[in-house]
């Protein structure tokens, strides 16, 4: 009986219910579709292009692995790949070590912590363009650090990494670390503040020393923070483009080229669209090779917990 009689209120409610179910989907749909097209669709398109002979504009004349063969015989590509390994590894590791150290020191209930925290976090508010330009001046031997130290009386002081083809990639690391370690510090600081004091007190009662408490209890319990830091930093490292463009312009020569700048140069300024697409696909593969195992192991741990 009741099932047959639809009171107006009940009907209204069911409409509202429907809306409530569909509204999130409706609201998310444009973003979802845009994501499918502009991220996954274009990855697919790039993959297709990398198997063609496209030069100035896309042309669907397939040539198999031709572009990949050329890519792996290109000297500049190997320089760029090696640079990414050096830069990515040093950038991520130094940022995390420095960030963690700063966070631990700041966590000692010191005075004017707020001000210090802001100072360290501030570089993050700058764009890489600004960072790159500032460091370009600081590291320039005839303008910056080297000149300053020489003027102070140390005539033999030399710091020419920026113009030294063997060392230029490390200047990118310096500028990148300067910019990002404060942010990593903030991440770790939030993590440290989230740890229950009771655990630390219990450890202190058991007679554990402070370094031991940090090493065995606090740092391991910040695993999720490490996870976010690594993901964020490694994606900054891989997509690094502006910093190199401003700081060294890939030079001297192409000694500080990264895959992203390599791809841009070949696809857009040298009319080798397919070749650039091939390099983009190799980059994509490399990112997947790093991220997927890491995500997998992290997410599996979470499930087990």
């Amino acid at each position, binding site marked *: 009986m009741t099932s047959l009689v639809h009171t107006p209120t009940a009907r209204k409610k069911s409409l509202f219910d429907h809306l409530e179910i569909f509204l999130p989907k409706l609201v998310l749909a444009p973003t979802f579709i845009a994501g499918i097209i502009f991220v996954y669709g274009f990855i697919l398109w790039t993959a297709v292009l990398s198997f063609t002979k496209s*030069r100035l504009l896309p042309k669907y004349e397939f040539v198999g692995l031709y572009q990949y063969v050329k890519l792996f015989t290109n*000297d500049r590509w190997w320089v760029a790949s090696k640079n990414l390994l050096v830069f990515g590894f040093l950038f991520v590791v130094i940022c995390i070590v420095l960030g963690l150290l700063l966070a631990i020191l700041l966590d000692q209930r010191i005075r004017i912590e707020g001000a210090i925290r802001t100072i360290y976090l501030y570089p993050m508010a700058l764009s890489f363009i600004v960072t790159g330009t500032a460091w370009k001046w600081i590291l320039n*031997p*005839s303008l910056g650090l080297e000149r300053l130290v020489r003027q102070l009386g140390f005539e033999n002081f030399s710091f020419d990494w920026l113009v030294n083809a063997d060392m230029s990639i490390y200047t990118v690391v310096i500028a990148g670390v300067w910019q990002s370690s404060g942010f990593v510090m903030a991440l770790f600081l939030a993590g440290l503040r989230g740890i229950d004091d009771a655990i630390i007190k219990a450890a202190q009662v058991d007679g554990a020393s402070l370094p031991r408490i940090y090493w065995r209890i606090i740092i391991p319990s910040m695993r999720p923070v490490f996870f976010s830091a690594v993901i964020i930093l490694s994606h900054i490292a891989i997509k690094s483009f502006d910093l190199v463009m401003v700081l060294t*312009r890939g*030079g*001297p020569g192409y000694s500080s080229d990264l895959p992203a700048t390599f791809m841009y140069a070949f696809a857009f300024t040298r*009319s080798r669209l397919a070749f650039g697409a091939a390099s983009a696909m190799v980059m994509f593969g490399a990112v997947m090779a790093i991220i997927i195992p890491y995500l997998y192991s992290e997410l599996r741990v979470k499930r087990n917990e």
Partner: protein
Amino acid sequence: MNPKLLRNILAICLAVGMLASSAIAGEVEVLHWWTSGGEAKSVAVLKDLLEKEGHTWKDMAVAGGAGANAMTVLKSRAVSGNPPTAAQVKGPQIQQWGDEGVLTNLDDVAMAANWDKLLPKVVADVMKYKGRYVAVPVNVHKINWMWANPEVFKKSGAKIPTTWAEFETAAKKIQAAGFIPVGWGGQNWQEATVWESIVLGIGGSDFYKKALIEADPEALGSATMVKCFDTLRMVLQYIDKDAPGRDWNLATSMVIQGKAGMQFMGDWAKGEFKAAGKKFGTDYIAMPVPETSNGYLFNVDSFIMFNVKDAGAKKAQKAMARLIMEPKFQEVFNINKGSIPCRLGMSRNPFDFPAIYSFDTFEATAASGALLPSMAHEMAVFPAIRGAMFDVVTNFCNSSMTSQKAAENLAAEVKNAI
């Protein structure tokens, strides 16, 4: 009344007449990257001329990346089937756009004004796709210039060099006197600019043609090329160690300030000297790069014209092509830009001395066959090959690579890029 004025009046009457008779005016949308002071002023000249004829000008200036950004915009517009009326594209890239089948045929305008007679053949060939004009040249820059500070030479007791051997003697003296012999900008295009001038000087124009225009691997790996790299290595001994990454205008200002003796750079460097209030002849002098006095490496900017459907736009496009080649625009534009007109036989009076010298060699080399397109400035080879050459040269400049190895790499990388 001089004939030029008469011609201008005639042109205006003709334009007014055309306006009255057809009353079709259109819009040109022009994509370019002339956005800096003098350049923007130069473009405005064309805009005024077109507007005088009743057409409208839609400016589409895309700054940055030495045109790379503008090219990206142009590609996306062309792919979406909505190209502008005209775009600033030069050299072999005109052929690439021709291959895409999007360019219009300007032969009627060219025939009417007899462009074939007005332009040196090498320049006209660049503007043509399969024998038909698809682009209009705007200006000519000479690349193989050497700018020197006579004060530095005098203080060092050195002589302005005309050969590479003399260069070495002079550079040694300048260095001994405590100056930097060569103001050097360590960016790949600047390194390539010097290198191509060396190739022209040492190899001669036939070798230049084979190596840097035809990109013949045999010439690129030859003993002559090894010799060119040897010379480049010799020049590199006389630069300062902070050169990597330096902008060309900073290198020029080293010469202006008397820190460096000379710089190898195209004629746009003149603008820097002028802006600094320096006088030609006393404060700075300009000579051809050693051993290249008989050659002329040119860089010609041009506009390609796209197929447009609208009748008015078509008309405006043709008017634009015609106006660009007319003496009035060629003169005013090039005085502003610091280059010379690409049209032969123009009056030299309004130009200054380095430009007049450039005029003379332009016409002389056009006749002798030593008027050659510059590789470094996108006139000679496709961007892919140019990029490969840049990579080898910049790597050579910034490492201790031997000349032998550089020539080998050059041949291999170019072969790989084709």
